């Protein structure tokens, strides 16, 4: 546990300092944090043994809510847009969850994928409303009532996102260690027993699903603001796959994992884009293989070390 905090704190310090040293990185770091938030949502579900290939849905949904509201000058304010859009995604998760928590394993994964792809297709189809594949522009809203220039907007958005990410991570860490979190893990290890303890595994999963939808939604809302443009691609299955990728890359052992993974992902992708613009997919793929084979518990596990096994034996 203390290690978890240590890693988290180290990551935090690095993150706080970095933009001050290299201003152009703020947007990329903010994007990484947003993806980290979505991957954190995936981590929650992974604890229940469920893999979602459709969390792009929540990511994209809140991003579009932001885009529409900002375009309509409804609540043209970051501090309004973000919570409203996140809640909207939460609402969708609450609806979809009603039906999706009945399914497990491949069915769970594929239904999520199906629903997100339906949304993706709609975003492309209804192009008169959504702008189709070209997406929508998101005009820059005010922040705390102030109209900011690009640079300071980006600067503040980064620190706001960082703060939100820290809060989210701490909450998720608490939740996972609580009885509810353990019940969630129980879905993975033995649902029969869970039912025979009088606990509804669907309810437990529903809660987690809602949480994961909110986390992905939060990430999506912010990414819409900082990149200033939304496209259906946010809901595409490959994007959802990336969240899973990031979660595993970072390691699901602790809540700092997804953020580590997202940073690493951005860094690798950034370098690959510079040095191998034509084969950056392959570079990412190879990196992923390296991580899986040489550090199967992800970056987090790499840093935290294989404490668990040996610690257990020592007792």
């Amino acid at each position, binding site marked *: 546990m203390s290690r978890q905090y240590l890693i988290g704190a180290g990551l935090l310090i690095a993150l706080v300092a970095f933009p001050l040293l290299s201003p152009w990185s703020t947007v990329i770091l903010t994007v990484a944090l947003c993806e980290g938030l979505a991957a954190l949502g995936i981590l929650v579900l*992974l604890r229940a043994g469920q*893999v979602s*290939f459709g969390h792009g849905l929540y990511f994209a949904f809140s991003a579009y809510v932001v885009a529409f509201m900002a375009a309509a000058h409804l609540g043209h304010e970051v501090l309004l847009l973000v919570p409203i859009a996140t809640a909207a995604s939460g609402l969708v998760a609450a609806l979809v969850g009603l*039906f999706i928590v*009945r*399914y497990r394993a*491949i*069915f769970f*994964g*594929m*239904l999520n*994928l*199906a*629903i997100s*792809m*339906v949304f993706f*297709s*709609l975003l*492309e*189809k209804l192009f008169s409303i959504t702008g189709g594949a070209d997406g929508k522009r998101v005009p820059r809203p005010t922040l705390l009532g102030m109209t900011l220039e690009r640079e300071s907007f980006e600067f503040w958005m980064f620190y706001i996102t960082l703060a939100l990410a820290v809060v989210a991570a701490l909450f998720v860490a608490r939740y996972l260690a609580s009885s509810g979190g353990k019940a969630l893990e129980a879905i993975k290890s033995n649902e*029969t027993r869970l039912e025979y303890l009088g606990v509804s595994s669907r309810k437990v999963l529903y809660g987690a699903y809602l949480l994961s939808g909110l986390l992905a939604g939060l990430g999506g809302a912010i990414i819409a603001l900082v990149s200033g443009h939304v496209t259906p691609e946010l809901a595409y*299955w*490959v994007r959802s*796959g990336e969240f*899973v*990728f990031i979660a*595993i890359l970072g390691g699901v052992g602790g809540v700092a994992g997804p953020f580590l993974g997202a940073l690493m992902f951005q860094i690798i992708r950034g370098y690959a884009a510079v040095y191998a613009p*034509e*084969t*950056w*997919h*392959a570079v*990412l*793929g*190879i990196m*992923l*293989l390296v991580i*899986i*084979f040489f550090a*199967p518990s992800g970056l987090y596990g790499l840093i935290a070390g294989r404490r668990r096994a040996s610690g257990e034996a020592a007792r």
Partner: protein
Amino acid sequence: MILLAALDGLAYGSLIFLVAVGLSLIFGVLGVLNVAHGSFYAIGAYVAASAVLAAAGMGLPTWLAFPLFLVSAVLVGVVVGGTVEALLLRRIYGKEEVLQLLVTFAVFMILEDAQKVVFGTQPLFANAPMNWLGTVEVFGIFYTSYQLILIPLVALVVLLGLRWFLRRTRFGRAIVAVTQDREAAMAMGIDATRIYLFTFIIGASLAALGGALSSATTSLTPGIGSGMIVLSFAVAATAGLGRIEGAAVAALMIGLGRSAAVYFAPEFDVLIPYLIMVAVLLIKPEGLFTTVQTRKV
């Protein structure tokens, strides 16, 4: 009208079936949802098209394309599929299932770029085999025999062949046993490692065969694999875990559904596979064909 749509749906559904059944088989036996499956499809298509073009360049007769399809499918299955299984997947059986999935995701990304490097980005096609078989006329409309007859026929042969193979042959039964309990199967003298490799190769070859067959009808561009993979996922989930008959029914439903949509509701065309999947799972949460569950308590 409906009949005409059904004819188109049949051909399309057959092609999806070929690819999806390979995915289903791999999933059923190895428990791995193979994201790279679409790449096998794409590579199969590229290799077949290149082979057919090369053969034509050497002045060989067109009919040779059909054995070439088979050869390139098996070649891709053995070389690419075999390598992926033996070099990568094999090292992480028994670990978290997500990891296996991610390995295939990584392979998918690598193969996508590998295709570009090897085959280029310009669309490629080799339609001679399709034209060679000529057309048939149904109600005054011309269909290519290739799409109307050959592809569904191949799908049917694969379906029946696989069923027979899994149920009636010793090797097929060994595969089924490994599916259920790898360790117990080994204690029965079954070489699980070989079975995994073999199954993966069969699955990959089927995807490649689908690709090879499609290379005569469609033009190959970067990214054809990822379109196919989502469809196969939809089929596999609709079918029920690792069910071959289920894959056939689901693929056909999707093929027919899509054709019907083009006629009656073009707006829903792309949504069809997902809507079918959601609808089926709403009614039958375990998929079209459920597998026998071992008693747990």
